[in-house]
């Protein structure tokens, strides 16, 4: 059964130095507040896994939490570069960042394999791309039935997954809806998990198309309203597109980023929802 705890407690219990961590949410429901708590608790040497590193990993990378990034698209959606990610890859600041790079289809299938208890997944992908020779978790495989050459990708099984959802009930059953990304797969492929939620309700009302995670499949639930900001939780909050645009200027400059980190994450009270960017 999931334990309902504070965000600080959930992160303290679930995330350890050196862990492989997946914080998922495909544009929607990105667990920013939990990411900031990981920074505040000073976790180090993390291998960060995410299809789209987005601002959340730009912030963790810039804060020096990561030694490695496993990803498939590292940009600021509709805006441009993730400058902290680029600074780490291009100049090793604040520390060198090892990368393991895939496509979205490959990453999604790696989570599916991990959630399914399989060592790899198979797909039509990567053929002819430069990724095959750079990434050792991509290998050609021959179909035993047709003889066709396909691509195998290694399963992902993180130590912990963190996601944000709209609701949990008092027993820790979780429900999320809207763009559901790979969150179910991330939770089911990981040893431990944290779910932050907008609201804790007496009972979950079934919704068509929603993803329901039973309490016994989740480790910790924390009540964190607006915990996806500047991403969003459909039905509760809107995506803060202005924040994504404003981030570009902050992240371009090491000093501006460091000031932002100190003012908005390190010195912000753990219980406080992440506020406006400026």
């Amino acid at each position: 059964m999931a334990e309902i705890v504070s965000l600080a407690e959930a992160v303290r219990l679930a995330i350890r130095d050196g862990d492989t961590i997946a914080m998922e949410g495909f544009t929607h429901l990105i667990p920013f507040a939990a990411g900031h708590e990981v920074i505040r608790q000073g976790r180090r040497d993390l291998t960060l896994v995410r299809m789209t590193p987005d601002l959340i990993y730009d912030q963790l990378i810039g804060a020096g939490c990561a030694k490695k990034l496993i990803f498939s698209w590292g940009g600021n959606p509709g805006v441009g570069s993730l400058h902290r990610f680029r600074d780490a890859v291009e100049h090793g600041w604040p520390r060198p960042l090892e990368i393991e790079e895939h496509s979205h289809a490959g990453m999604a299938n790696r989570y599916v394999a991990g959630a399914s208890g399989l060592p790899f997944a198979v797909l039509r992908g990567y053929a002819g791309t430069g990724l095959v020779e750079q990434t050792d978790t991509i290998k050609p495989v021959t179909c035993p039935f047709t003889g066709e050459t396909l691509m195998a990708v290694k399963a992902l099984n993180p130590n912990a997954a963190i996601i944000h959802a709209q609701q949990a009930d008092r027993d820790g059953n979780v429900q999320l809806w809207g763009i559901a990304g790979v969150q179910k797969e991330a939770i089911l492929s990981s040893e431990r998990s944290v779910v932050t939620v907008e609201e804790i309700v007496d009972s979950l009302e079934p919704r068509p198309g929603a993803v329901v995670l039973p309490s016994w499949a989740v480790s910790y639930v924390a009540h964190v309203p607006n915990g996806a900001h500047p991403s969003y939780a459909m039905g509760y909050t809107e995506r803060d597109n202005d924040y994504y645009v404003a981030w570009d200027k902050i992240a371009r400059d090491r000093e501006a980023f460091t000031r932002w980190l100190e003012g908005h994450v390190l010195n912000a009270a753990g219980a406080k929802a992440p506020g406006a960017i400026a």
Partner: protein
Amino acid sequence: MSDTAPTYTADEMMTVAAARALTDGMTCFVGIGLPSAASNLARATHAPNLVLIYESGTIGAKPDRLPLSIGDGILAETADAVIAVPEIFNYWLQAGRIDVGFLGAAQIDKYGNINTTIVGGDYAHPKTRLPGAGGAPEIAASCKQVIVIVRQNPRAFVEKVDFITSVGYGSCPGDRERLGLRGAGPQKIITDLGILTPDPVSCEFTVTSIFPGVAQETIRERTGWDVVIAQEPKLVAPPTAAELAALRRYKGK
């Protein structure tokens, strides 16, 4: 140009030309940025039944303003179906259900191979680290056809890309078949100067349509390979007042 003809920018001409390349009723896998603007313009003008599919798992999205990201709320709220990400790639894209993939590029070469990974240096020590692959490699492989939209300059239009993120025609005719890529590959590269299409024999992209007022010399200057321009390239009609109004209505929101 007469007093009544609407004035427009090169980017607007490019977006309008890209919208015209889509036919009504097609299923279209849409990248963010220019592809999203063009496909929404098509839906607002001549192709009201165009099915827009975004990699966030939104099928049949009908946004009334341009989304900033591929996962904006407006896409999920207006979609016919919202499905998980493994499903969009496996059941819908990989299985060959999508007519056209609409991609951007940082670099593209004469065989239509796309680079969105690194520029300069080597993979471990790139001069410029780009965002990477996203959904593009499998969109380029599995959609029945691909359209690329990218502004034309010698840094983007190169003889050979620094890294193949998404395969066009590889290094020669026949490569797609050898690699097992099921879609037909890129059929058009639409730029701010005109439209390139692949030579049916060599697979090399050549300029077959030119936008109004663009000199052939400009096209040569802004292409990093010795580009072939068709003997009698088609002259593309300028944007109509209706196309411009629809595009600006989207952009203005």
